[in-house]
């Protein structure tokens, strides 16, 4: 059984998405990257469960190739 939630878990998904985009869309690419890194770390700590985190990292990485 997978530890990472695949089914919807956020109430008001549209509202959340707008909040997220509002937070980043006027940032330079550099700052947006910093924002994403911070957000990742904050949420990762909140989740804490190493199995869930590993599955999330794998899921996010899917389809992306190493850059030579």
């Amino acid at each position, binding site marked *: 059984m997978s530890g990472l939630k695949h089914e919807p878990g956020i109430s008001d998904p549209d509202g959340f998405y707008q909040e997220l985009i509002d937070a980043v869309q006027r940032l330079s690419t550099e700052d947006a*990257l*910093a924002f994403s*890194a*911070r957000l*990742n*770390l*904050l949420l990762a*700590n909140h989740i804490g469960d190493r199995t869930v985190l590993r599955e999330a990292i794998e899921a996010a990485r899917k389809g992306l190739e190493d850059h030579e």
Partner: protein
Amino acid sequence: MATYQYPKYPYHPPTFAGGVAPLAQVVIVGGGQVGLTMALDLAQRGVASVVLDEDNTVSDGSRAICQAKRTLEIWDRMGVAAPMMEKGVTWNEGHVFYRDEQLYAFNMQENPRSKFPAFINIQQYYVEQFLIEQAVQQPLIDLRWCHRVTGLETTSDGVRLVVETPDGTYTQPCDWLVAADGVRSTIRRQMGLSFSGQVFEDHFLIADIVMQREGPAIRRFYFDPPWGPEASALMHRQSDNVWRLDFQLGWNVDRDEELRDENVFARIRRMIGPDTPFELEWKSLYTFQCRSIDRYRHDRVLFIGDAAHQVSPFGARGGNGGVQDADNLGWKLALVVQGRAGVTLLDTYDEERRFAAAENILNSTRATDFITPKTPVSEVYRNAVLDLARDFPFARALVNSGRLSVPAHLKESSLNGADELQGAVRPGSPVPALPLSVPGDASVSHLTDVLGDGFTLLCFGPANADLSLDSDLAVRLLHAGRDFHDMDGGVVAAFGVQDDAVVLVRPDQHVMACWRAPVPATILDTLSMITGDCR
């Protein structure tokens, strides 16, 4: 150097120059901190050794400064911790700064009642000097200065070394060779062994300065310090008012330019401020690496210290790891040389210390990757961690300015026996130096003091009062409440003693087995792992 006079140790021309020296049971190549610890350990166990070193003084310039608690415990067994403690500067705390703020502090002393502090800072040349002063008192150690090994030939029952001296070359045959000849090991090269790993693309400028400055001895690590262009900097107090400064310069630098006095002075000035007078004792520029050979035993040749593995200094795991190598190998080699254990026992040296070195390399690599991010993206993450660490304690746990040397817990060792108690100290762990007393013996203050150099059984509970063992390994039995008193219950708690517990401790003070209520046959069976094919 202003604060240190390099000793010159006497060179004795070999009487066998041009010929063959008498066979030695054990030859140690390299009289550095690790080779000397090895010689002292063997001598303590009654085994003679020849130590060959290519020069006649101690470590040139400034390298290792931090010596860890476990190292001090090991040297204590050899009677050489006292001068180190007297000369060294004690510290337990590390403070980590980012830009102009302190992010957090950590304390490395897990138990304030331990015999030794988490660390002392002491210049490597003092360490070697004190080890040499102890070694020359030992008739079993034949220290030969200005004897450089230039070649070797391995045979089925030993090794023949080619040794060069100012008075000519000779052949030194030996049964066992311990290669402690450092990171540029001649033995390793002559045997064609690959030494592979990672080079970190960065330069670190090391400066040792003398200055009068008050304040506690703590490790200070600065990420992106506000005073200068360095990516990071480190500051450590050593003895004699000498301070170690370490500046991270980056990869694309002009080495000669960076080492020019005026540039070094400018960096130091920015860091310590404009007013404090100082004198520069030593400067050097390093790139750091993490490397290892694949196996630490090659038949009759055993590799220890930097000859076997190299780590980046963040974490002080190089010298401290090497001393633990010697501690691990000493008793095993002694038993084999004395014919009391089979040679396969030496494979457990390779197994256990390769495990420990892998842990050291992993920790040093991770720290260096944090300090020197390899790609722009990893730098983004690194900086995100630092930015969050100010406000969020969780991020401080991710900040890695070096995971400092702790003893190896040989959890997976094939020598480990029963694991029937539930304490924090389990088979494979070193015994903690907790307070303890022995009736009528004021020289004993901690558990490690009563263990001696052999195998020890710590016996608890009334059922073990008459326990006796008939073993070739000369096992000492110590009964709680009779032979020692656990001062504040710390020992009982550490092992999780219950019922009629018995703890078997190896000669290197690592726990071998923990039983709840064993019969002698069970204990003897575990000990037979040591004696092996020799029985």
